[in-house]
């Protein structure tokens, strides 16, 4: 009985160590994003830093809001998004995740 308990104890502590020593695999989820004009620019520029979940879960927003978000990514987060792509991404976001208001 003593031996059995010891074995259990060792296996538990080993498990804890192995778990923490191993590579942790964070799962990938497929966030359903709307397809449309400009989607390629979105895929090329946004996914490097964050999932589409970040976009979908902001709720519908104004064009000024989306412009502000994309500009923030460039100005504060230093994302290398070209001027052309910036405008494309803003237009895409407003069209598919806009609230109909420019501001």
């Amino acid at each position, binding site marked *: 009985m003593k031996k059995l308990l010891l074995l259990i104890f060792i296996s538990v502590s080993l498990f804890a160590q192995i778990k923490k020593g191993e590579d942790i695999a964070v*799962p990938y989820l497929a966030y359903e994003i709307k397809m449309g004009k400009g989607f390629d620019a979105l895929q090329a520029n946004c996914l490097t830093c964050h999932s589409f979940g970040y976009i979908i879960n902001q709720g519908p927003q104004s064009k*000024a809001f989306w412009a502000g978000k994309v500009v923030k990514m460039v100005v504060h987060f230093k994302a290398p998004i070209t001027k052309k792509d910036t405008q494309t991404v803003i237009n895409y976001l407003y069209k598919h995740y806009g609230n109909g208001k420019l501001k």
Partner: protein
Amino acid sequence: MKRRDFFKASLIAASSVSLTSSLNAASQPKDNQKISKVAFPEKRPMITYSDRPPLLESPRATFTKAITSNDEFFVRWHMPEIPTQIDTQTFKIKVSGLVEREFEISLHDLKTQYEQVEVTAALQCGGNSRSAFSPIAGGIQWGSGAMGCAKWKGVRLSDILERAGLKKDAYWIGFNGLETAAYYKTPNFIRELRIDELDNHVIIAYEMNDEDLPYLNGYPVRLVIPGTYSDSWVKMLSEIRVTKDYEKLFFMDIAYRVPDNETQSETPEKRYPRTKPIVKMNVKSVIGYPENKTIIQNASHVVVRGVAFDDGTGITDVLVSIDGGKTWEKSILDKGDAGRYAFRAFRYSFKPKEYGKLTIMSKAINRAGDEQPFAKDIGWNHGGYKYNGIDEVTVEVV
């Protein structure tokens, strides 16, 4: 046209269009959001807003208990790159800057060379319940589950600073963790705190509810600052740097700030020019049971359960109303043995007497006399921070 001018021009173009009226108020946050089928490491399936960075919310039913279990505890990271492996033998926290002795602390040092202390404290994202705001405030539209309460074990920050020896001009401490951005130039998620604002309750924690910190909650060590919002509870803490001057940082100067006026509110059309960090948590309660749309038999027993907390001032009462807020009755609070920073569990029993929809409300009050306002009386702020409206669930009595 220079790049900056281009952005300015596009913003002006967008802003020159006339505005429609907006509510500028709050209502109940989103509830009953879908739980993901996919579980993340050391977590049970949760509401999952993003996988990179991971953003996981606890469902309402989590909040019937004063301690949130590790596998249900919410997760919020800022950067896409989180180390996928921590070597516990070589992991170190570097202490540097305006100190007499710069040094590194290993996990072993942390657990053996300092007094080990515990504090039970609530942790809440500044944007918790953001979905309550109208018009929709910028940011992830969290329900009320970006919060939790755990027993944290670790070492006092003050003990570490004492060993380092603060120099005369030491006024600020910067904390940095191991999460990193995809681009080299992206600012790190560094937090700066004023030394005189840190008390003995601030700890560097390696255990949460008697287990190692879960990976997604900051394994192997994180900062714990009881009473404050979670934005400064740096995860995977790797650097403590003492400075004389405050350094300009995106995550301090632009993110996690509210209008610096009495009501901490503004309108989308007229943003308040001065802002301040969110820092201390306001008084709040959340009902864990029953939930919206729960079906209850008429004249049967209902035990409402939930949790309440504030910035450590101390909850004195949680009142419950079952008549739309006209009359309120005291609920029964737990003993409060876990200390002033912890969730207080409350319970309130009654029997419904009428068929149909029934709304149950909870309102917490603290030692300073602060109480939760009705959602409709909460002013808007651009980041959707610090929502603390009276909580409501509407059940069906059949």
